[in-house]
Each structure stands twice: as structure tokens, then as C-alpha cells.
């Protein structure tokens, strides 16, 4: 897009292009790496619930603040990865993450608000997402699953968001900012 705007800018060398590309790909790559890392045997308590919680926070944050780097196909791929590493029925996480992405893109007004408002919105979204995932999993397995893991997953997502958002905000402004390339 930016090459169409008039103005003076440095010449597009190969390194500059690579730099810009890696900054653009940072959100998706970072989310995928986090998901793979959480599948590794750290023996942390609640590691299984951590995967969907982290994916939710990542997709929500980047869809809200940089939708160009978190496009629907990318969200689809991340959902598929989450389904494969978390032994979920395939398609469930894909749908949940796509819905979250749709909501976040529609609520772009939030991007201008303070942190607390965004967090509150995320808590609502996480509650909805946990509920949808629970209902779909029950429906696909044709049996009632224990509710505790849904509640725990929701709590984890809501509580984890501030820490992730802090790190992502730093990355958004510095490391992963395509304007800085």
C-alpha cells in the first residue's frame, strides 16, 4: 500500500524488504511459536489450558491493533495448528479464533481506548469463546464434558492477557513495527 503514496523514502533494497517482511510476519510467527513451545514437555500445571488461552489473547490483540498482520487466512492456519497440537476435535478452535478475529476487527473503536476497557472487552470475548468451544466439543463428542476445564481456561485467558498485551505492545511499537523498517 505505502509505495502508492507520494513522498520521499529510502530505496527498497533486499535487506530492507526482508526486514519489513519479518516485521509484518511477527504476530503470526510469534503466535505459532508460542503454541509449539507450549506443546513441549515443560510439565507446567495447566499447560493444556494455556494453549487455547494464549492463542485467544494473541489473535485478539493483533486483530485489534494490527489487522493487516492477522488476516483471516492467518487466523485459520493458527486455529488449525491449535487443533492439531491440543487434540481438540478439528475445526473447533478454527471457528472460535475466526469469530474472535471478526469481533476484534469490528470493534476497532476499542484500539483508541485505555487498557482497562480493552481488557474488559477481552474478558467478555474470552468468556464467549470458552462457551462456544465447550458447546461445540460436547456436540462433536456427543457427551457432556466436565465444566471445570472450560472455566479454568477462561480464567487463565483473562488473567494472562495483561502480561501478553504488555509484551505485545512493546513489540508493536518497536520490534515488529513495519514503519520502522
Amino acid at each position: 500500500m505505502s509505495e502508492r503514496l507520494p513522498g520521499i523514502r529510502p530505496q527498497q533494497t533486499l535487506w530492507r524488504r526482508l526486514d519489513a517482511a519479518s516485521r509484518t510476519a511477527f504476530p503470526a510467527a510469534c503466535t505459532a511459536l508460542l503454541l509449539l513451545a507450549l506443546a513441549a514437555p515443560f510439565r507446567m500445571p495447566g499447560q493444556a489450558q494455556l494453549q487455547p488461552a494464549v492463542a485467544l489473547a494473541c489473535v485478539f490483540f493483533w486483530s485489534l491493533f494490527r489487522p493487516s498482520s492477522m488476516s483471516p487466512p492467518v487466523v485459520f492456519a493458527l486455529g488449525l495448528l491449535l487443533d492439531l497440537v491440543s487434540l481438540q476435535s478439528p475445526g473447533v478452535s478454527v471457528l472460535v479464533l475466526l469469530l474472535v478475529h471478526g469481533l476484534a476487527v469490528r470493534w476497532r473503536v476499542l484500539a483508541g481506548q485505555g487498557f482497562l476497557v480493552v481488557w474488559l472487552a477481552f474478558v467478555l470475548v474470552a468468556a464467549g469463546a470458552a462457551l462456544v468451544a465447550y458447546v461445540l466439543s460436547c456436540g462433536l463428542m456427543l457427551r457432556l464434558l466436565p465444566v471445570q476445564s472450560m472455566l479454568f481456561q477462561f480464567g487463565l485467558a483473562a488473567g494472562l492477557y495483561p502480561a501478553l498485551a504488555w509484551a505485545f505492545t512493546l513489540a508493536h511499537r518497536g520490534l515488529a513495527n513495519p514503519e520502522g523498517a
Partner: protein
Amino acid sequence: MIRLSIPVRQALSKLTLPVLIAAAFGLMLLGKADAILAERARMALADALAPLFATLAEPLATVQRATDEVHGLLELRADNARLREENENLRRWHAVALALDAENATLKANLRWIPDPAPSYTTARVVADAGGVYARAVLLSTGPNHGMTKGQIALDERGLVGRITELGTRSARVLLLTDMNSRIPVIMENSRARAMLLGTNGARPRLSFWPEGVQPVEGERIVTSAEAGAFPAGLPVGVVRYSASNVPEIETAARLDRLEVVRVFNYGLRGLVAPEVLARPEAVRPAEGRRR
């Protein structure tokens, strides 16, 4: 890149999300209709990740050992007292066991007892707790040509862990006995009554379907039963513990939360497992579909 007019491009970008949401529903239907496809995709990913996790497991285990060491040093005194008491107790049992062993040997000699063949086994490292929110399973890293088949039985050094449910070329997935889909025929050791062990995704699986007139006793040992030919008889599973709501649950003998190495045994059983080996290929689908 194809040059499109701006309205067309806007319309396309608005369409992407609904189309992908529809694709997600399609994926769910596909996963439900063809469970083998999802399983294959999952094992391909696991195969790719297993070597990575195996290299990671080594330094992680070192850290784990260091913390365990510190804990151990702190609890040394209490452990010592407990061990002394336990040793005393075990010495008595040792005498009993030796006497019973001798008696058993003479009785077997008199009966012309044909001993069971010793089962062959493969030892494999657990590289990832591959369980998700709604499943309990572990991933084993095996070399190529591991010779494992579906339905083989995994044990750790203390007792039953679970069964192999999915196989890749260099990895295998073990469904733990705590998983919701796990059903294991067991025998209560004192009453010799048969029962089923149902996984609940919690730490302790539930005991059910015991016959009328028998009640599981707190602390009773539970072992596998050879019913239906899925397991050999007598593998230690755990002991009965009543929950707060008075439901008999099993405290597993195997330490399922800290599995490091498991042995996968080939007992040559052809019970409920591996519907693929049946002559009728159409029998594969429904049996596979029901499991997920």
C-alpha cells in the same frame, strides 16, 4: 499480483471471513466423518515435532532433577524416619513372600503348570504431554522401525499407563487411562469381582459396573482383567479411594503426571484392538469414528 479494481478487492476482503468460517464448519464435519484423516494429520505434525521435543526434553529433565534434589534435601529427615518404618514393614512381607514363592513353586511342579511366555517390550521416552483441554494422552519418541502396533500396552515402573492409539513413523501416542475415552476391564484383588475403569479426564478414573453384592473397599488393589482379551490379567492399576461424594475412584499406581520413560509391551493380544486388521475394510470407519 493480479490487479483488481478497488470495489472488487474490498468485496473480496469482506467475503474472506464468512468463507473461512464456513470452511471451519466444513472442517468439523470432515473431522467427524473421517476421524482417520485428522489422526493422520496430527501424527504427521507429531512426527515432525518429536525430534525437537526429544532434544528439549534433556535440558528440561536436568532442571527438573535439580529442583527435585533441593526438595529432597529439605525433606531428608522426615523421609528417613518414614523409610525406617517402611523397611521394618517390608522385611516382614519379604519373609511372607519367600514362603509363598516356595509354596507356589512346589504346587506348580505338582500341577504341570505351563508358564506364560515372557512378553517382549520396547522402552520409549515420553517427549510431550500431548493432552489438550479435553483429552489425556502422551507422545512417545520412538526410533524408526519401532515395531509397535495399536493396542499395545504401556507401563511405567509402577503400573499401567494406557494403550497405544495412534502410530507415526517415529512417534506414538498413548491414551492414558485417565482419558475420557479410556475403558479398562479390571478385577478387584480381594473380592475377585470384575468391574470397569472409566476415565474422567481428572486425575482419578472412576470405578463402575461392579456386580451386585460386592462393594469396592477403600485401599483395595485393582488389577487388569483378561476379559475380552484386550489386556493380560494382573497388571497393577491402582488402589480404591472413595471421593468426597462417596464415589469409588482409583489412585493410579503409575505416576501419570510425571511420566518420563514407559515400556510398551507386546502381549500378542488380539482382543478389542486394531479394527483395521479385520478382513472387512468397511468395519474400520464406524469403529474409528466412535472412539473420538
